[in-house]
């Protein structure tokens, strides 16, 4: 149960981080919809796009972490069950 609670809090933080990152990507997209005609303005818009790309990479990394989270939960459940069985047997 102890592992379960720890991983639940990890899951909560991961979920929160994912939704905040997605929201940040949406907000950055609205900068690109503004008018940037000069070289300086275009360079700024391009840097905003680069940040967006970095955040997309971050969401991918978080997606991978999410898939390992479910594996970790299963793994810890199995461990807890085994410890419980041993205690019952003794």
């Amino acid at each position, binding site marked *: 149960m102890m592992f379960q609670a720890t991983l639940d809090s990890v899951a909560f933080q991961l979920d*929160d981080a994912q939704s905040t990152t997605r929201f940040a990507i949406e907000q950055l997209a609205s*900068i690109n919809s503004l008018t940037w005609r000069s070289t300086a303005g275009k360079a700024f818009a391009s840097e905003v796009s680069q940040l967006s790309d970095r955040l997309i990479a971050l969401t991918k990394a978080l997606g991978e972490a999410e898939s390992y989270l479910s594996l*970790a939960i299963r793994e810890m459940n199995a461990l807890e069950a085994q410890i419980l069985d041993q205690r019952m047997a003794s």
Partner: protein
Amino acid sequence: MGYDVNYNSLDYAQSRQICQQVYGQLQDVQAQLLRASVRAQECQQQSQNQCLANGIANYGYAVGVLADKLRTGYHHATEAVIDARRLEEKVSAAIENYVRAETRIENSILVSGKWQILADLWNNTRHNDSRPPTQDMESILKLFVLLSSPRDRFGFARPQPEMMHETTQNLAEFIKIWGPLRNKELKLSDSGPVEKIESDGTVNTFYKLHQVLNDAGPEEDGKILIAEAEKDGKNVHLVILPGTQPDSDGQNPFDTYGIIDGFGLDSENFAGPIAEALKISGAQEGDEVILSGYSQGGIHIANLMKNKFLGKKFKMKKMLTFGSPIGHIDLPEDIRSLSLEDSKDMVPGTDGTENTRKKDQITVKFDGPRIEDQLDDGLFGKPHDLDNYGDHLKEMVENPVPDLQDNLREFAIPPGPLTYRKFKIERKERPKNTKHEEWEEEKYRMGR
């Protein structure tokens, strides 16, 4: 990043706001991922300890990988935070560059055109009953402040409205601290009986209420008026503040010294007595209050629209001014204001700044009085007479411009009888031996 030649202040401001928000959000993400990876690592460690203690084959591979992935995410987030911060700094620098460049150009235009400004001032004042019209008043004050401020002329120039506001505020604060009335505070001293007046169903009712105060004579100086109306089934309280009453004994808060309160104290000393008068009038917390001021009264009400004490007690979202210099007061976006200015009136220009126009904050300018022969000359000339502004208001109601329809409707008071009361506010000696008093005395002594 310099600033875009196609600079659009709204786009830049929006970009800066977004970058600031994204920066804050990414900092949150960074902290969450750090916490999550630490928790996952702890979980892996504890599982390994449990395995060891119970003689079980090693578990914790997936948790270990999870911790690694979260750490990778944390590193991505850290780099993104740095990028977002850099973008925010760049766009802020671009805005600053633009403002500085524009200010330098505005200042150089002002200085290079000084002889023209003086010639215009001379000519226009000659043809305006020896009083400078609004725009000339603003220009000459701006020029005077700019020429007397080496910092703005040769160094780090402030935007002109900021330069004017800070100069008048510093001057007002200086007079406030060293002036003879520094130990006085405003108190509500008297409340009159309930009286009635007829509303014609339009915004003209505000002028009628101002007229009640204005026509009362010097024995009623220092009084404000609070009327109660019912609009859309809800109680609305109208607070009316008069203009400058120069011939006073030092106790009248609307004397020339009152202008110092408006420029130097943000009229904060008016908030208490007005809240008390509203309470006596029967205003409940949360009731709507519409403020209206003529001349100096307009400065006070524009300041009070930002007053936190009054804003917490009442719903204050609308204000109406007649011939008031309020260009230096930056009202929040959600305030609806209607300001009337006569271009031949010098008073609205005495803060050296034009009123800012926002979505619901409109200044209507008129090209001089229509009824000059019926107006009083007074201290500031016929264009500043309250009756002139009453006539302009009437003109607006009779020939409404489409852009103003919303405002005229919002400020219209339903037809029928209105009740009102007058309240006297006086400057009184602040009680002695308070900490504030000691502090003020000490400051005064040190200064001498």
